[in-house]
């Protein structure tokens, strides 16, 4: 059971890392996510059901997400509309495209096909299947985390961070911000779709509505992670994204298991997740006020000391 939470959380963490790239690093509120996670699930499932290889299925998921991100970034660049609106447009269009990918079915089961998790179980025959799945997904997440960490330490990755902090600075450095946005948003959505591709294989089906509410869940994961520790190092930012994602899934698991005691059903989860995000925002603003207060106190203290010196 416990392994299940971790596997679920780790799959989710890939998406959270993707959302961090757009929301936090690039400061681009991108809602393409809800469409691209379903698109990744759809294309990976269709490829596997048709007998394709799992690696190719996951690569296709990444690519389809990257393409969706490219569309969002181009709409944003060319028509000068806010990223939020561009993302909503792509997300909505993707809903139809995803159903097309799935051959106009709302749901495709994967139960009879060999998935990533079946492969891993066969690779570690001596381990219980849930532990084998866990090891498999840990390796995937670790690989992604390392690649993301390295990418954001390269010159190109840093310029993406600079874009989020100050677009004018990027322009002043002679970099075309439009290309940077295309690259960053497509990378972000590639990861999100990859997460969708893995999720479909884990839950055993792809669904046209898979993406609904994903962005708020992802934000909840990010914010839980940000409570753990604060840092400006990319390796710690991705680490806390992974931890936040797992904690979020654990909370949801507890809600499913014990929620009936206080009459909570899974139908309430979207509401609860939204409230969780609002509470996180509330605590975060309280924190910054508290640190402002303590800074003020310190300043008064220092000025008193100084006047003491003069005396």
């Amino acid at each position: 059971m416990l392994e299940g939470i971790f596997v679920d959380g780790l799959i989710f963490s890939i998406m959270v890392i993707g959302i961090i790239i757009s929301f936090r690093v690039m400061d681009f509120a991108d809602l393409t996510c809800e469409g691209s996670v379903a698109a990744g699930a759809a294309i990976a499932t269709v490829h596997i059901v048709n007998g394709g290889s799992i690696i190719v299925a996951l690569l296709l998921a990444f690519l389809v997400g990257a393409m969706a991100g490219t569309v969002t970034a181009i709409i944003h660049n060319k028509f000068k509309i806010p990223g939020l609106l561009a993302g909503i447009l792509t997300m909505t269009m993707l809903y139809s495209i995803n159903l097309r990918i799935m051959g106009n079915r709302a749901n495709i089961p994967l139960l009879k096909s060999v998935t990533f998790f079946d492969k891993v179980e066969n690779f570690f025959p001596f381990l219980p299947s849930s532990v084998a799945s866990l090891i498999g997904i840990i390796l995937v997440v670790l690989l992604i985390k390392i690649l993301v960490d390295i990418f954001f330490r390269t010159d190109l990755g840093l310029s993406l961070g600079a874009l989020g902090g100050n677009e004018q600075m990027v322009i002043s450095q002679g970099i075309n911000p439009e290309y940077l946005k295309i690259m960053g948003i497509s990378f972000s959505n590639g990861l999100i779709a990859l997460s969708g591709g893995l999720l479909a294989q884990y839950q055993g089906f792809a669904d046209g509505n898979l993406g609904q509410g994903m962005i708020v869940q992802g934000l909840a994961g990010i914010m839980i992670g940000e409570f753990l520790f604060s840092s400006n190092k990319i390796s710690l930012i991705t680490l806390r994204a992974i931890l936040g994602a797992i904690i979020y899934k654990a909370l949801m698991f507890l809600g499913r298991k014990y929620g009936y005691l206080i009459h909570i059903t899974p139908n309430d989860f979207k509401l609860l997740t939204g409230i969780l995000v609002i509470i996180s925002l509330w605590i975060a603003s309280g924190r910054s006020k508290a640190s402002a207060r303590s800074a003020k106190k310190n300043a008064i203290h220092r000025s008193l000391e100084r006047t003491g010196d003069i005396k």
Partner: protein
Amino acid sequence: MIEINNLTKVFYPGTVNEKVALENISLKVDEGEIVCVIGSNGSGKSTLFNLISGTYSVTNGQIIFKDKDVTKMPEYRRAKYIGRIFQDPTKGTAANMTIEDNLITASSKGWKSLKISLNNTRRKEFSKLLIPIGLQDRLKDNVGLLSGGQRQALTLLMTIMSNPEVILLDEHTAALDPRNAEIVMDLTLKYIAEKNLTAMMVTHNMKFAIEFGTRLIMMDEGKIIFDVKGEDKKNLTVDKLLEIFKNIKNEEFTNDEGLLNV
């Protein structure tokens, strides 16, 4: 170095808010010149800078940079030759990144590659560069933690590091307190001299504009009304400058009056 021919900029053309910000300006800045631009608010100084650096598109006219027409070149491509520092200290640096990350991003212009350039050799170089502004031990601090003066000094350092041929300084010390303004200005003049840069500097300080630089331009209502360099500039005083300004304004005033009487 920079040649501006018959440059005109009209904001919101064809609407009731139509405003002619620059009217038929021509200006030629030679290599190595340090041009101080003065003028009251709304005289078109900032618009001129925004047109030179490509933030705004021109309504009419031509901007030539080293014999190359850059009138239609996008801002990020012109930025390869032009370093620009704004009045707002937050505009030149990325607050969400560390000082070293900001510096490495600024150390070369143009599209970046997947190379990791930041290493200990570079860190040592950066530390050394940061000594004059007292930030040598804070490479790993986020820029958002710095004061306005420190940020502007860092912006200056980053601008110089990227080896521009021209720098445009848009009242870059106006938002700082007098002490920090002096430090940043001293550094600016030091770097301009060291790197032999061509510079254009907007300032509100007439005394400064007279003392420094090789050329002085006064702007008013979208036009260049006074342009002086060489010996004439050396003999200039604040009183003389004010007198010239008043004379020009008076002339206009009487002209307007004349028009109204007709």
